[in-house]
């Protein structure tokens, strides 16, 4: 395709805008930004065709730092803004950057509807389990009992699980990664970009100022092999430092088993990101550290389905083919008319 061949070769730094990055030193957002800039040149998309759209939050400052088109909108509405943009201009490559508050608290409804419409765009939710920008209130992903500025006696709202919500809302692409797991993160962003339809990616992100260490269990060198599980399509669910543990299905309940001792990989649950029904992806989204399970990272689900932005434009084409391009005179004179002579 000549268009791609003509593209200048871009480097990650070509995607850095001229604005000073203003996150707290040590914030997990830096690493996500770095990976995004690395992924961009690999997409083969002209820079001017790319749009980053965000709501409000620390994470939502992201578009200012990307030398692409961008919108830093209002709290919770990035998915809706992106829907309007992508519907009008399916040629653009659209990324939505949101936080656990922006995307799941005030913006939960738009997120859900964007996902179910399967708009062809990529949503990256930076989950730090806290409101960073407003300085430390709990968020919908904060665990029960968490003490924050607005919950001095501990949070009493049962938290939401971003991937469960997305799957409940008919998601076609769902994935998870971790800010500091940079290779995995980069690959996950690439997979999201490659998917046609709404790609929903949760990134565990550390807010070192207001919720430091929230994801340590999944990030620490010592524990992460036991507390996370890297999903691979068509492969059994194996994890552990020595890759000696696996997940087996007992009816509809996952259980952790030790490999060897009569249990081998074939007994395990095999990952199938293309499963027609999302029940596997849902079940995987329920495996939680607090219940003793390793938390899956990688692509949970990736299936093809009709996309709103494509369909809307197909209808325009079809209508034009059937009725011919709009003729104003014919439109105005529709219905009964009468003529008054001069």
């Amino acid at each position, binding site marked *: 395709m000549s268009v791609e061949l003509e593209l200048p070769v871009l480097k990650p730094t070509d995607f850095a805008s001229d604005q000073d990055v203003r996150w707290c030193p040590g914030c997990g957002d830096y690493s996500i930004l770095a990976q995004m800039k690395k992924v961009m040149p690999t997409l083969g998309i002209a820079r001017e065709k790319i749009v980053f759209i965000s709501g409000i939050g620390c994470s939502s400052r992201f578009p200012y730092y990307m030398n692409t088109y961008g919108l830093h909108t209002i709290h919770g509405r990035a998915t809706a803004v992106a829907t309007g943009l992508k519907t009008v201009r399916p040629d653009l490559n659209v990324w939505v950057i949101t936080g656990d508050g922006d995307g799941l608290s005030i913006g939960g409804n738009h997120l859900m509807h964007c996902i179910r419409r399967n708009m062809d765009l990529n949503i990256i939710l930076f989950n730090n389990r806290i409101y960073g920008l407003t300085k430390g209130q709990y968020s919908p992903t904060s665990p029960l009992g968490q003490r924050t500025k607005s919950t001095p006696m501990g949070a009493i709202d049962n938290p939401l699980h971003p991937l469960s919500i997305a799957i409940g809302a008919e998601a076609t692409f769902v994935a998870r990664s971790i800010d500091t797991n940079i290779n995995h993160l980069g690959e996950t962003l690439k997979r999201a970009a490659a998917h046609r339809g709404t790609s929903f990616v949760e990134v565990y992100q550390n807010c070192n100022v207001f919720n430091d260490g929230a994801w340590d269990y999944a990030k620490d060198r010592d524990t992460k092999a036991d507390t996370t599980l890297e999903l691979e399509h068509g492969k059994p669910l194996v994890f552990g430092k020595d890759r000696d543990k696996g997940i087996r299905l007992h009816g509809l309940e996952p259980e952790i088993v030790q490999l060897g001792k009569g249990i081998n990989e074939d007994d395990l649950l095999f990952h199938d990101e293309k499963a027609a029904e999302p029940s596997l992806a849902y079940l995987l989204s329920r495996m939680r550290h607090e219940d003793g399970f390793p938390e899956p990272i990688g692509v949970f689900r990736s299936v093809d389905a009709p996309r709103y932005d494509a369909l809307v434009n197909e209808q325009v084409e079809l209508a034009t083919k059937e009725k011919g391009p709009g003729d104003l005179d014919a439109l*105005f004179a529709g219905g009964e008319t009468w*003529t008054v002579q001069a």
Partner: protein
Amino acid sequence: MSTVAESPSKPVETLIEATVRFCGDSGDGMQLAGTQFTTTSALAGNDVATFPDFPAEIRAPRGTKAGVSGFQVHFSSEEIFTPGDTVDALVAMNPAALATNLVDLRDGGILIVNESAFDKKGLELAGYEANPLEPGGLVDLEEKYRLYKVDMTQLTRDSVKEFGLGTKEADRCRNFFAMGLVFWIYGRSLDPTMRFIESKFGKRPDVASANTSALKAGFNYGETVEAISTQYAVPKAELAPGTYRSIMGNTALSYGLIAAAKMSGKRLFLGAYPITPASDILHELCKHKNFDVVTFQAEDEIAAMTAVIGASFAGAMAVTASSGPGIALKGEAFGLAVMMELPMVVINVQRGGPSTGLPTKTEQSDLYQAMYGRNGECPMPVIAARSPGDCFEVAQEAWRLATRYMTPVFLMTDGYIANGSEPWKVPSAASLPKIEIEHPGPAANGEKFLPYKRNERLARPWALPGTPGLEHRLGGLEKQDVTGNVSYDHNNHQSMTDTRAAKIAKIADDIPAQTVDGPATGDLLVVSWGGTYGSCVSAVRSARAKGKSVAHAHLRYINPMPKNLGDLFGSYKKILVPELNSGQLRTILRDRYLVDAIGFNKMQGKPFSVAELVEIINSLA
């Protein structure tokens, strides 16, 4: 049979104008009857104006007052502007309709009732203790009006017998019987309605034939029955030459939007969430995808509005349409649109408030919301349509201003003009104003794009994604002048606030001076805006005809106002501002011009009658 009585068998009286209202249960097809009568009168060369009156949103149980639906047609041999204060002929299909509509029938007017509906159950549902058709009640209908009791149910059934419909379907033809009768009374042709029946029911020939038969039966009933002794003629009006059609406000608005998109070379994007009485704009636009029209029914109004922002950034003609409660939800997003300085159109088809209020009734009480309903200093242009047909032009004007000044524009209409209809001189596409839009092209190598560098109108450039070298970011935080970067600088905030205000104020240079209907100086100036135009112009002309020194200024532009407006006020002794609210425009005029404007305000979910306006005018001039 000729469908119009060529050589009338009964005496014909010629009238300048008349007003007819059809009313009955929601299921009785009264809107259809009214529409057909309107078209027919228009085709006959009358000037017409209509007022459909829907029941509250839910279909109430048959026969109850809550379920009554009405449609009023005013037709005339002279220019008219309103659907008429009172009714000359009332058709009431059931007791509930009679009970709720009789007040508007003038003394001595024609009253046609479907007698068969006045049975025990029907009377009970309407809350009548005794049958009002029988003498001896509070009012003797026979005495006060020209009462025609017609057993429409039976007559209709008889007339359609041969087509083998079930009773339910047969009864559905009753409205055509009623139409036929009224058509006879006003000497109207049946042809347009027969053509309509053909096109609408072509696929069910039995139904089509039955309807036609019922229509003719009604007509013949008039011709035959002796009790009905006179026919009326309302001659042609002198209208400007041209081709006309009847058009409703929401349709005209939709056409105006499509035209504006086409004339500016844009894709039209409507982001909307259904709400009465704005939904019909969505319904209309979604039919015209072949005009490159995209409609997005969003999950709520906030999504609709923010999608509109996205669509505008993407380069479309982006529009949202809603009513009061929905507009309330968009308030935060308006602020973002103002800050981003992107062009778009926000339509408010006003209804009765506050809160859910009176969803199917008209009102003008969202002007404050349009002018002031946002956080921060957040100026937006506000313009208003004055009649169904005017919606067409105002839609184009809104988009012209939006693009020339890179701003969201408020376009106000209301339930009254949205659902009302009037004859509309069909414009030719070639005559429409072009709307020129410039987008900056690719940046020369290394040149820095400055998204907030302004032109002579203070408008910033509309750079579209996809243009190499113009990559830029917009947002809701205060922006630095010229560069558009985020800025917390004190003086910059002052100057950006001032500039945003100055840009909107500058629109005053780009709009016509305010005109006045009537003398340039005098005792009284009536100042109106929006859908009250018709009543106000009628009342002012009528008062003037009776020798009063009164003029009328109707505002299309509310923010900014025409530059000469303040000066005009000096030329009249008094200023009267009639509004279907508690005085919202008046507040603005008093503030801006320190003029002691007097309010005449009505909050009854219905338009002004001409008579009440004439009365207040007479008391002041």
